[in-house]
């Protein structure tokens, strides 16, 4: 069983929803990333989604775009990100790490080399935003051959027939994008999300994570009641953006505690 799968199994036994914070690796500066990861775990992260900076983050809103730009100032690419995961693993062998990024940095080194290196760094899952299942069959095989979970996004516009196709390729969990638009947009409709998550569950036994548009304790709690995992991205990055070297870890810890309390308080 992969680390992601066993984490979900344990949480399920405890009647809990996973909290998955997202940060962009190298933001605000590469020296902070591993510390930020440990801080998030200490304050309630069940898994971590680690963004791989890309020059052209087409599916991201301005907040995560700026995070990518800050990281790219320090030339943080895929190799640097994998080294950060390795460093994190020296003291944490338990928390699943899911890389999230775009296809081109992977294409630049090739699917096989990437899968080897991700395995060597002990990465658990990979989300490649612009790799729909039709275009990445070989990539999925390379990952699964190494027990790395390919995680796919489902959107409000994904037809049930496509949900079948996507869940047939996915493992670990599926990630429901809770609104139309880019990351950071603010029009989460919990009623609608709830219905969609219910219908996705009819098509797969995989855990369902929900993300995009969860920005505070209230939305986190509402989402935790219906999902197996709550992903918080833009709000994490905003907090990082608004911090300085001295209060960065403190501010992120405070936000995590707030979110964790809300997620744990959700009625299932």
């Amino acid at each position, binding site marked *: 069983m992969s680390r992601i799968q066993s984490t979900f199994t344990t949480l399920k036994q405890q009647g809990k929803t996973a909290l998955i914070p997202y940060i962009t690796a190298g933001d605000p500066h590469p020296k902070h990333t591993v510390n930020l990861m440990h801080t998030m775990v200490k304050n309630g992260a069940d898994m971590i989604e680690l963004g791989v900076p890309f020059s*052209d983050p087409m*599916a991201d809103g301005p907040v995560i775009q700026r995070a990518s730009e800050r990281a790219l100032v320090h030339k943080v690419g895929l190799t640097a990100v994998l080294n950060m995961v390795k460093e994190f693993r020296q003291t944490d062998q338990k928390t699943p790490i899911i890389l999230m990024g775009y*296809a081109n*940095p992977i*294409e630049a080194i090739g699917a096989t080399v990437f899968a080897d290196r991700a395995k060597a760094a002990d990465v658990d899952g990979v989300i490649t935003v612009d790799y729909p299942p039709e275009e990445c069959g070989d990539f999925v095989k390379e990952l699964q051959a190494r027990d790395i979970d390919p995680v796919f*996004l489902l959107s409000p516009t994904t037809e049930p027939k496509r949900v079948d196709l*996507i869940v047939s390729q996915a493992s670990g969990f599926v990630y429901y994008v809770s609104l139309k638009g880019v990351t950071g947009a603010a029009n989460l409709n919990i009623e609608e999300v709830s219905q969609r998550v219910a219908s996705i569950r009819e098509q797969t036994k995989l855990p369902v994570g929900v993300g995009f548009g969860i920005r505070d304790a209230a939305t986190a709690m509402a989402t935790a009641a219906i999902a197996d995992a709550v992903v918080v991205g833009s709000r994490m990055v905003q907090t990082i953006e608004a911090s300085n070297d001295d209060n960065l870890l403190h501010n992120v810890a405070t936000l995590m505690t707030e979110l964790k309390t809300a997620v744990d308080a959700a009625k299932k």
Partner: protein
Amino acid sequence: MQLYDMPDARGHFGQFGGTFVAETLVEALEELRVMYEKYRHDPEFLAEFAYDLKHFVGRPSPIYHAKRLSDKVGGAQIYLKREDLNHTGAHKINNTIGQALLAKRMGKPRVIAETGAGQHGVATATIAARLGLECVVYMGSEDVKRQAPNVFRMKLLGATVVPVESGSKTLKDALNEAMRDWVTNVHNTFYIIGTVAGPHPYPMMVRDFQAVIGVEAKVQMMEMANRQPDAVVACVGGGSNAMGIFYPYIDVPNVRLIGVEAAGHGIETGMHAAPLTANSPVGVLHGNRTYLMQDADGQIIETHSVSAGLDYPGVGPEHAWLKDIKRAEYVAITDDEAMAAFHNLCRTEGIIPALESSHALAYAEKLAKTMRKDQIVLVNLSGRGDKDINTVAKLANITL
């Protein structure tokens, strides 16, 4: 003979092309693919398209035998396909009319576009005004500065121009921003992409709408010279004017197809926009797989060209394919060479060409010199240079 029949049903040209987009866009592209399949051979749709090309754009655009230029160069006869004479001044209008007519049939009241030089933005704003559609154009803030007259034209036509401040602030970033708008507003918005790039069906659809250039040229060359040209030369940014004139010639033997990329300050300086000529690696950007200018980490690198319309780090996937199967050749022309060809055409033929098209002209001059006087080089003169007068004046240190 096996006739050329690309792309496949999913938009692949061999390993190139495809649909590399976030899940949020898949359904919108599927809707577009189905609608385009429905209308691409529909007689009524095609008749409406043809009517607008004739009465609104002024097609067919003539072919002109540039005799004085040919004599001066001393070699093959240079003929020009005069896309510069189209309404709005470039080939871009052909495609925007096709896509806008499709938008209307799909019941989308709002169109968006990305633009580099501003020609595609102007062409989109123009057809949007004519059809009563709301129009938003994304343009890199660097290009907004370089192409001020076109920004003003778009505004006159009622479009909203949004300067894009992210990344390198040029065409690729405008495309990113337009994609972001589209994911957010797919329910009422049609994205009119301006070149043969983007996810399937765009590269195929834009090629089909631009193919009128080559279809006309084949007939006109017979009328004028009683033969087809020995070489067809076109500049390549994303590659729409080149695909438009190449496509109908792909199955015609003995016609060389030559795409001219922007070598900027020179391929060896790294400051260029010539992924094919520079042998850039294969990658994925803007929804398709193609040759891409990038660093070792797979980050897209900044391009340079004196012409905003060629300043793009990738190239349409069909050009990548035509290069690999060796049906087309790709070369590059520097800023300086393009400027020289620009001035040359102004003075010898009384035609002010776009800086983009000047790249094709510069290579045609080089090529013609190596050929016999009874041979023919057909250049796609993709646009006129009125939009470039500020850039040219600045380079020549002239205050307007």
